[in-house]
């Protein structure tokens, strides 16, 4: 009896481990081929310039970053692609410098065919915590189907891992019985 319980546990563990591994491999493939990034940096939420914000994170007023404006398919380093609200973002874009920010001229200015970034980040406050507010994620719209896929992935991963753990405890003979909630004085 105990033997068959452990055999069933072993089968359960092997099957769910294989499924968990498959889900994890799928996730990392999505990560390495850039699909996760494409889903996140999907469309422009405002008019402006798509940029790779990390490329100029160290710029200062004394040492500004000059971004070359052009219609690049992939943003690499100090480049900026003009976008309109609703446009698909080029690969490598991590944020939008919107037109309003450029018009204000406090952080970024337009100089001919280049964007001059002088204040790439500023300190802001959220729920009492201070954090660096940068151009990363600014004006970016996420793929709504990507959100559905992400939640489904989380549910499936949780289910596979939970079932795998259940199989593991069965396999090692740790029989987990249902708790008797109403025995004795209560």
């Amino acid at each position: 009896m105990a033997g068959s319980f452990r055999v069933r546990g072993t089968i359960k563990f092997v099957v769910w481990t294989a499924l968990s591994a498959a889900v994890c491999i799928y996730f990392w493939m999505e990560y390495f081929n850039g699909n996760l990034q494409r889903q996140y940096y999907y469309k422009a939420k405002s008019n402006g310039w798509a940029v790779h914000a990390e490329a100029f994170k160290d710029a200062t007023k004394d040492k500004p970053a000059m971004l070359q404006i052009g219609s690049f398919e992939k943003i690499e380093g100090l480049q900026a692609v003009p976008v309109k609200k609703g446009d698909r973002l080029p690969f490598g874009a991590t944020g939008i410098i919107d037109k309003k920010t450029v018009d204000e001229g406090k952080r970024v200015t337009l100089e001919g065919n280049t964007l001059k970034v002088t204040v790439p980040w500023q300190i802001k406050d959220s729920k009492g915590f201070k954090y660096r507010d940068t151009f990363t994620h600014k004006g970016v719209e996420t793929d709504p189907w990507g959100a559905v896929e992400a939640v489904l992935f989380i549910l499936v991963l949780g289910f596979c891992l939970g079932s795998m753990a259940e199989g593991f405890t069965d396999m090692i003979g740790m029989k987990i019985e249902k708790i008797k909630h109403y025995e004795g004085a209560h």
Partner: protein
Amino acid sequence: MFEFVIAGISAPIFLLVLTGMTVGMVGGFIGVGGGYMVTPALIVFGFPGYMASGIDVTHICGKSVVATIRHRQLGNIDWVLGLAMVGGTMMGVEMGVRILNWTKDLGLSGIALLFGSVGIMIGLFVYTQIETHRSHKRIDELTEGGTTVGRELKVSRIPHFFQSISLWPIIRCHVAKIVISMWVVVIVGVATGVLAGFFGVGGGFIRVPALVYVVGATTHIAVGTDLLEIVVSGGYGALRQFMSGNVDMVAVFFMIIGAMFGAQFGSIATQYVRGPAIRYILSYSLGLATVGAFLRLVYLLSAQKYEFLNFFAVVFTLGEMIFLCLFILSLVMFAVRFRHGKWVPNWIPALVVKGD
């Protein structure tokens, strides 16, 4: 160090796995998502504030699935109760988010949130402490009188009042052995959902006491059923957060891996203890979270002049996770010793079980 391309930061993977594991353990044991602990931790690791909330909610959804599977095996889930509550919870969460946006428009959100959370947490902490302490004493008295005490013992009479409301439709919760008006369950769902939506958390720390003290479920069933609720409300929260661009899935992935181990331990640990032990831990977690929130409130009210208050608030919140894990570990360790007839402190026998 791992570079999180979407979050735009570098952070050590082991810290995320460890955070997931500790919160998973506490969450699996007391049935909370742990949002009030994870968000500050992620901010400390360098994640932007908005992303910390998104990663937190998304990981809570996955972690709750893992813990729910184990609690189902332990017989701690009342599906009727959970599903009856879900609709109310979702409606409440939406209302809570709208109230939050309204306070934001008034320029009050940070302070309103902290005032609200400190007030509710102090109230719940005091009530659970008093009630659990009385239950603890009652178990001692019954045991001394030679009565065999079961898994659960509560001295609160509040559930009797709510169960006596005979407003149609009446639902029968077979696992929880409760017959109650569905309206009570739905209203509890709405009320706890509003608070969850307003505070931006899963709401477990409000819903578990509500299930125990209003609906009248045993603590174990409240924990399991609440985790089922968190799967649904967390999934909805994750969807909204992802659409708002607040989620780095790679960070979520590492946290769920850690949470898988923690949630297993936390869930299985519930079979070693009685209801009051879980309520004690829930109560202490509320008390400690209150101190952290109170320090942040003073920091905000003092126009953010005293940076050390914010620092201590973060230290307190992170220390709380470790303290609660150690408390759960020591309870399990003493429970095992008690089962084997070895020495345990005087307060332990009333909180643990010898085995079903």
